[in-house]
């Protein structure tokens, strides 16, 4: 078959098609352009409100690198042990405070998870028929997770006094809000057949939850709790800023009072702890979820 015998589109049809294509892409391009313009305008507006001064930033960037240089300890190879001993002169106190930080995170996560556990069944659309109860549970959880934990900590410090107690409560409330939402989403995704089976035998709410829902959601709950514990360790490390316990107070003091090497010593401890907890919880989560998959 020769090339010129190939079927060709009628020129008028082709013209119309090409015009349609151009029109469609032009509309898309126009939308893109408008979106881009909006973005630029909002960037400029935000930059103006946030008092962004690139000149100042670049002029003072030297002080940032100098700061990093200043907080690093002076270590010599021939006297590394005494250097490290001097750097970590307060290790006993810092270790204790780090322990307290972990404890705040642990207790806060557990207490918060307990609250989330109880509320998640009330906030799940597939278990609770009463829209009023569900609405109340959901709004309450939303409130708990939207207000930042450090704001709760500020208020609790006034009510409960200084120390780790307000820190734990603040983390617990925030955790309850965050986990409550995740937990109720897990509950909404369960297989409903066991629930129907139990309801048909006349089981009440608690029995239905215990024997039809709980076995399906337990592993996911545990996995989310571990994830939250990791987040809460970071959160607990800053609770000390407002006097709510943990290592944050010492770090804040070191930064504010320019105890340079202390800053890097404490920061390094926090970073190592956070990374270690990261890896630990990840391993545990894989084991928990793996046990689920094997069943």
């Amino acid at each position, binding site marked *: 078959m020769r090339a010129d015998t190939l079927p060709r589109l009628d020129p008028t049809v082709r013209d119309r098609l090409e015009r349609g294509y151009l029109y469609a892409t032009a509309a898309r391009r126009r939308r893109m352009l408008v979106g881009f313009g909006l973005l630029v305008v909002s960037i400029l507006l935000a930059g103006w409100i946030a008092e962004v001064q690139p000149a100042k930033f670049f002029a003072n960037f030297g002080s940032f690198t100098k700061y990093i240089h200043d907080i690093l300890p002076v270590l010599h190879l021939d006297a590394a042990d005494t250097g490290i001993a001097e750097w970590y002169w307060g290790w006993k106190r810092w270790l204790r405070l780090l322990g307290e930080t972990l404890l705040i995170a642990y207790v806060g996560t557990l207490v918060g998870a307990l609250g989330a556990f109880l509320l998640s069944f009330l906030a799940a659309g597939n278990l609770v028929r009463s829209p009023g109860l569900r609405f109340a549970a959901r709004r309450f959880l939303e409130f708990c997770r939207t207000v930042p934990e450090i704001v709760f900590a500020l208020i609790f410090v006034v009510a*409960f006094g200084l120390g780790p107690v307000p820190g734990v409560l603040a983390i617990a409330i925030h955790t309850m809000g965050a986990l409550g939402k995740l937990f109720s989403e897990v509950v909404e995704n369960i297989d409903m057949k066991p629930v129907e089976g139990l309801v048909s035998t006349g089981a009440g709410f608690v029995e239905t939850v215990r024997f039809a829902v709980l076995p399906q959601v337990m592993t996911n709950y545990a996995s989310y709790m571990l994830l939250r514990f990791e987040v809460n360790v970071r959160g607990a490390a800053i609770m000390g800023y407002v006097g709510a316990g943990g290592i944050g107070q010492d770090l804040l003091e070191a930064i504010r009072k320019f105890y340079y090497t202390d800053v890097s010593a404490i920061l390094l401890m926090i970073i190592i702890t956070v990374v270690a907890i990261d890896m630990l919880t990840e391993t545990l989560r894989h084991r928990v979820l793996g046990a689920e998959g094997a069943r």
Partner: protein
Amino acid sequence: MTAPVLPQSPFSDRHFDRAAIMARYPGEFPAAGFAPATALAALVAIGGIVASLVIVAGVTPGAFGLAVIAAGQSIVGGLGEAGQALAAAAALFAGDLSAAGGALASGLGTLITRVAAPLGFAAVVPFMLYVLFVVVDAFRASGSSRALTLLIFGVLVSLLIVGLGVMGFSIARIAAGMSQLGVFAKLMLPPDWGSSGKLALYLHALGETLAIAFLGTLIAATLAFPFGFLAARNAVPVWLLRFVTRRTFDTLRGVDTLIWALIWINVVGLGPFAGVLAIVSSDFGAFGKLFSEAIETADRKPVEGVLSTGGSRLHAVRFGILPQILPVILSQVLYYFESNTRSATIIGIVGAGGIGLHLSESIRTLEWQQVSFLVLMVLVTVAVIDTLSQRLRFAIIGERRAV
């Protein structure tokens, strides 16, 4: 008409003889009763919990009982008082509206102070009951897994109680704090911005908060985008480079936004610019990690397709990987914008701009009505941003679930 006679089931109630059935099928049922391992584990768990309660936390049954009774009295008395105040409000609504508002606030306050706070405390009781329930529940079957569950449970709860004791929790302190909180809640009740000058100040601070979150997220995402490729195995196959980039991300992420804010204040001075830089610093690490993961999970086939037609590695990234990851990245950026609106509300506490400064100031000076107003402002803003970004996400990527 007579009822049909149903065949008698061997498992019907009258004939059900558990022992006989189990004896008929030897080896098919787990051993019944209390296996020694389970019993021992339960004993250890209960013993650990009780011991840590009594020794470390100093909880005695008497003190606990007294506290529960006090909470109960407060709830009952508070209900009566609140009822009277609310009834007064209802009566006043016909006449004086502002007085009715006052009575309503007082009634609600009483409800919070004397009912909700003790109720919160009384919520400890169902927890204790649940502990008992789980421990007893463990006897429903036997086996080593049950024993292990019990042991883990006992250790976790004991550690919880020890932690509570070490950190200075006590029933008296919690009860006192709860009633204090109730008083604060009552004082917060009609949210109020103080004066019109303060309202303008608060609105400006809210704008600052939004600007910080917006710019911080955008700059962090733009900077992290190229570095995400450096940390992805399938884009840059250099082991050392990947390792260094990843550890850098981890370090940046490990330092909290508040700490970054403190550091940047030293560089650019107090104000919202330090807040923007703080969010950029910590989110750079987070985005780098997320982006590199998105790149690594991208489908390999389009890349092979591009390479097979003679495209370079850069072409493969541009036409093979980018179209796959762009929607994921966009939805992550939007999600972080929401979450950064929340974090931008707090960096003001250390002086890095935004509404946090006013929030912490009004808490420290005990201006409770302004505290509740500010919290309300934050809640509304976050809700609006939530809705907007959800719309935008759906518009950009279609009805796909955010990763």
